[in-house]
C-alpha cells in the first residue's frame, strides 16, 4: 500500500465511535476526526461498520470509488489493501467501506477482529464508525477497539442512550471518552439546554471535545469534504482540537457556556 507518511512499528490505536442513539453525528465525527488526524500527518483508516446503511463513503466524498468492502475482506473475496480507498484530500486518510447489501450479522465478531488486525500494522489510527443501537452491529464495531469515543448531543434521549452504551463499553473494559456534539451556547446560557458540565456530571466520563452546532457541517456533507478543511468552521476547529488531544497534545477544553447576560456583567461590577 502506498501511503503518504511512513508508519512507525507501533500497531494502530483502535477507536470505536459510538452513541447508542442514531443521528447524533457519529459518522460526521468519524470522518472529521479521521481527516484531522490525517492533516496532522497520522496514517489513519476510517472503517464503516454500519453494514447495510453505509454513509461514511458519501461524507468523505468517496462513494464513486467503492469497489470492495469490509465484508469482502472478512470473507477473503479480496485482499485487505484492495478494499481501502485513499481520500482525495489527504494521502494519509483511507476508508474501509461497509457493504450496502448485507445484514449486520453477516460477519462475526471474530471475523471483524481478524480483518482489522492486518490494518493495525499499516496505520497509526483506526476509527470505527459504529451503527446506532446496541445489537450485533455495535458489538462488531467494538470487538477490535481498545478505546471509544461516545458522541452525544445535549438532549435527554441522546444522553440516556449514551449512558447505556457507556455501561456496555465499561463491561468490555473500555474507558470511553465523551464528545458533546451540536451544543448551542446561547441556549445553554438561556437555561434551555444542558451544559457540558451537566452532561459530564450525568454521564461521569471524561470529555475529549465539545463541538458547537454549525451549519458548515451540513454544507461540508453536501460537498463530501470533511468539515476540518473549512478554516472558518467552528465545528471543524473543534474536531481538529479533538484529533490533537488523541495524539496526546495537551489542549485545554474551553466551554463558552458561562452566562454573559447583562445581569451577570452588572452583577460582577457591583460585586455580587
Amino acid at each position, binding site marked *: 500500500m502506498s501511503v503518504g507518511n511512513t508508519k512507525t512499528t507501533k500497531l494502530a490505536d483502535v477507536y470505536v465511535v459510538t452513541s447508542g442513539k442514531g443521528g447524533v453525528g457519529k459518522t460526521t465525527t468519524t470522518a472529521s476526526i479521521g481527516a484531522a488526524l490525517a492533516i496532522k500527518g497520522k496514517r489513519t483508516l476510517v472503517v464503516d461498520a454500519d453494514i447495510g446503511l453505509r454513509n461514511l463513503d458519501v461524507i468523505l466524498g468517496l462513494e464513486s470509488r467503492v469497489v470492495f468492502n469490509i465484508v469482502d475482506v472478512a470473507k477473503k473475496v479480496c485482499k485487505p489493501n484492495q478494499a481501502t480507498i485513499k481520500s482525495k484530500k489527504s494521502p494519509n486518510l483511507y476508508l474501509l467501506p461497509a457493504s450496502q447489501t448485507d445484514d449486520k450479522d453477516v460477519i462475526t465478531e471474530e471475523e471483524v477482529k481478524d480483518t482489522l488486525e492486518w490494518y493495525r500494522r499499516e496505520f497509526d489510527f483506526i476509527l470505527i464508525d459504529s451503527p446506532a443501537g446496541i445489537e450485533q452491529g455495535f458489538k462488531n464495531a467494538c470487538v477490535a477497539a481498545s478505546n471509544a469515543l461516545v458522541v452525544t448531543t445535549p438532549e435527554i434521549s441522546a444522553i440516556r442512550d449514551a449512558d447505556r452504551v457507556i455501561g456496555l463499553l465499561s463491561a468490555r473494559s473500555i474507558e470511553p471518552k465523551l464528545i458533546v456534539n451540536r451544543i448551542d451556547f446561547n441556549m445553554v446560557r438561556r437555561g*434551555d*439546554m*444542558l451544559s457540558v458540565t451537566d452532561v459530564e456530571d450525568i454521564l461521569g466520563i471524561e470529555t475529549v471535545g465539545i463541538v458547537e452546532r454549525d451549519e458548515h457541517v451540513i454544507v461540508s456533507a453536501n460537498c463530501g469534504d470533511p468539515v476540518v478543511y473549512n478554516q472558518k468552521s467552528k465545528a471543524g476547529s473543534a474536531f481538529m482540537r479533538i484529533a490533537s488531544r488523541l495524539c496526546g497534545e495537551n489542549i485545554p477544553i474551553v466551554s463558552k457556556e458561562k452566562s454573559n*447576560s447583562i445581569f451577570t456583567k452588572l452583577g460582577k461590577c457591583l460585586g455580587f
Partner: protein
Amino acid sequence: MLRVLKNLFSKESGSKTQAKNRLQFVLVQDRAGLNNEELASFRKELLNVIEKYFIVKEGDFGIDYKRDGNTTKLTIKSPVVAKRTVVKQDDKSSNNSYSQEKLEIRSKNDSASSSDSNKNENSKNFKNKKAAN
C-alpha cells in the same frame, strides 16, 4: 432588586433543570434496574427517614446512581433547611442495613444563601407537609 431580576432570567427558569431532573430519575432506573414503582417507594422511604431528623426541601431531593470505576455509587442529595428540634416519630422501626452500596448523604444548607422569598417558600412547603401529615 438586581438579584431578583437576575433570578428571573437565570438558568433555573429554563427547561434544562427539568431535563436534568428527569434524566437523573430515568438513569437511576436504567442503571439500577429498578422499575418505576420500586424507585418511587425507595425515594419515599428514604425521604421519610431523612424527614424524621431534618426539614428538607422536597423538590430538590434527588437520588443518583453512578458508576465509579468498577463500583457503583448511590448518592442521595437532600438539601436540608433545618434540623428538627424534636425527632419526628415513625410508626415503623427503621431498618439500617443498606447492603454493600456506598450511601452518601450530601446535605446542602440552603438557608444561608437563599433569598427571603425562598425562605418563605420553604416554610410554606413545610406547613403544607405538616397539614398533609
